């Protein structure tokens, strides 16, 4: 049964997680994501799950580590400064090949920054973020409905590949309310096998969940195994939304909240007959390189728009590989490029 409910992005992420079978949440207060722990505190007991307000971000991510090691679907959420604190735990989760979902509703940085929407944690999210050679899958919703829907995908990907998945949103998406079509509570998500889960060693040899490989050669072998997994993810899990790409001469690239502004510009200029399109990456890692292979033609011009200073830009440049000019427009620290600023930039680059 589908139900239509008016929800904020934060609430949609929380409800989506519960409907996706998440039964463990630990978090620590930080703006602008406080609606998530508040929602979980109320809903988790109803859903027979666990809610813990942890004493710190370090504790929260390590509680998630424990819950995940015990075999249940577990998540935490925070915003930029808090996500920095979680990096230790995320590295250990990656190193122990444990699935989990981490929501980052980004705010302005660096340091304490401010509580305005921003996208400046792109590098941190897509490059690993903590110590070691690892990646997290990173999904970036642009709409409240998509925030809800992507939680199902996030938990499935985490379980299928045994790795952390980051939902990268921002304060704007978190606070904004939009109608959401919710799935029936009985919706089943794929139940991946977790033979390593710590359930007590009845009728099997004992399991050990760890990320420590001291003997010579062991860690390198383990890292090769991780790299092989990451290659599979890069091949199979690229996600993006395209608009008007078949004949576009100027292609905007933006994700999350920024993509909504970019989409308005594209719609507006299309009405005026301008050949303009949009690539909206939904998976930021793996970055949807295939879109650029497919749509880069002679005369294609790209314009990357971010609420940060040229972070996704690097991935676009790598994907385009010098075959087309790549321009950039970005603001950060609370500034969001406006439709007018984007249109002025387009005018400038298209001559």
């Amino acid at each position, binding site marked *: 049964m589908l139900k239509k409910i008016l929800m904020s992005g934060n609430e949609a992420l929380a409800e989506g997680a519960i409907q996706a079978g998440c*039964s*463990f949440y*630990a978090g620590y207060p930080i703006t602008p994501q406080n609606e998530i722990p508040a929602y979980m505190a109320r809903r988790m007991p109803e859903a027979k799950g*666990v809610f*813990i307000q*942890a*004493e*710190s971000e*370090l*504790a*929260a991510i*390590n*509680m*998630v*580590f*424990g*819950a*995940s*090691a*015990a*075999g*249940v679907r*577990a998540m935490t959420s925070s915003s930029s400064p808090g996500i920095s604190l979680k990096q*230790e*735990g995320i590295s*250990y989760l990656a190193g*122990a090949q444990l699935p989990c979902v981490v929501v980052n509703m980004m705010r302005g940085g660096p340091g304490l920054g401010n509580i305005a929407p921003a996208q400046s944690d792109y590098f941190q999210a897509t490059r690993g973020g903590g110590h070691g050679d690892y990646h997290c899958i990173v999904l970036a919703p642009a709409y409240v409905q998509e925030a809800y829907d992507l939680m199902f995908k996030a938990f499935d990907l985490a379980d299928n590949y045994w790795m952390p998945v980051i939902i990268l949103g921002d304060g704007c998406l978190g606070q904004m309310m939009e109608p959401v079509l919710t799935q029936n509570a009985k919706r089943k998500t794929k139940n991946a096998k977790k033979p390593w889960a*710590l*359930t*007590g*060693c*009845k*009728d099997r040899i*004992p*399991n*050990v*969940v*760890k*990320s*420590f490989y*001291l003997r010579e050669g062991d860690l390198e072998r383990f890292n090769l195994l991780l790299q092989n997994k990451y290659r599979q993810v890069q091949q199979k899990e690229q996600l993006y939304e395209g608009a008007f790409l078949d004949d576009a001469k100027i292609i905007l690239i933006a994700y999350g909240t920024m993509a909504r502004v970019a989409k308005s510009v594209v719609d507006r200029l299309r009405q005026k007959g301008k050949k303009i399109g949009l690539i909206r990456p939904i998976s930021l890692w793996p970055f949807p390189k295939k879109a650029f292979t497919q749509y880069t033609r002679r005369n294609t011009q790209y314009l990357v728009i971010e609420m940060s200073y040229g972070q996704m830009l690097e991935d676009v440049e790598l994907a385009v590989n010098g075959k087309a000019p790549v321009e950039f427009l970005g603001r950060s620290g609370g500034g969001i490029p406006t439709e007018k600023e984007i249109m002025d930039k387009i005018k400038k680059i298209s001559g």
Partner: protein
Amino acid sequence: MKQIFTHPKSLRKISTHYCPGCGHGIAHRLISEVVDELKIREKVVGVAPVGCAVVAYDYWDFDCCEAAHGRALAVATGIKRSRPDIVVFTYQGDGDLAAIGTNETLHAANRGENLTVIFINNAVYGMTGGQMAPTTLLGQKTATTPLGRDSKLQGYPLRISEILAQLPAVRYIERVALSSPKEVLKARGAIKEAFQNQIDHLGFSLVEILSPCPTYWGLSPKAAMDWIRDVMVKEFPLGRIK
């Protein structure tokens, strides 16, 4: 003939990497004996720390989880809350439990998590080369207190067990030592009580074990045992704290 002594089923028959005279081997064995006696081998999960005992899971023959340095009680909380039927214990050194992990320790105890904590206090960081621990005694020489711990510069030995005992949600705290066969037997009894409390859903239980580190105390194994008895217990008195 009645067999009164045997190798615990929960302890693998392999030699450990610990230094001669180290207390970890004894503590591992005591836990294994208790796990066998309480018949919980198939429903226990041990959480290993970062420190000398990081590979404790190589020696215990039951499910184990490794935790980041200081985070054992957060990891244990996640396991226990997700699977309340599993008996979860952490095994942590003084640096892990009372320095980098003090916050996790204090709050797990304050929430009254139904967990068992085995706290190995040997007054020194062993794995990293004998640096000062929060429990290092005044005057004790370590790699980072070459002239001995000075209260004016490094403060005092941290009696974390006494601090935790003040929390209303804490069920049981006892300090024991491995300094003689008699004390080892008492330690075994305390460990058993701490596990039994969890099985009976009574809440947070912690056993602090004064354990020898001959290597970084610069003593022979025998002299290290004597040092616990003659010196260490003056700072860390034995017995039930709560």
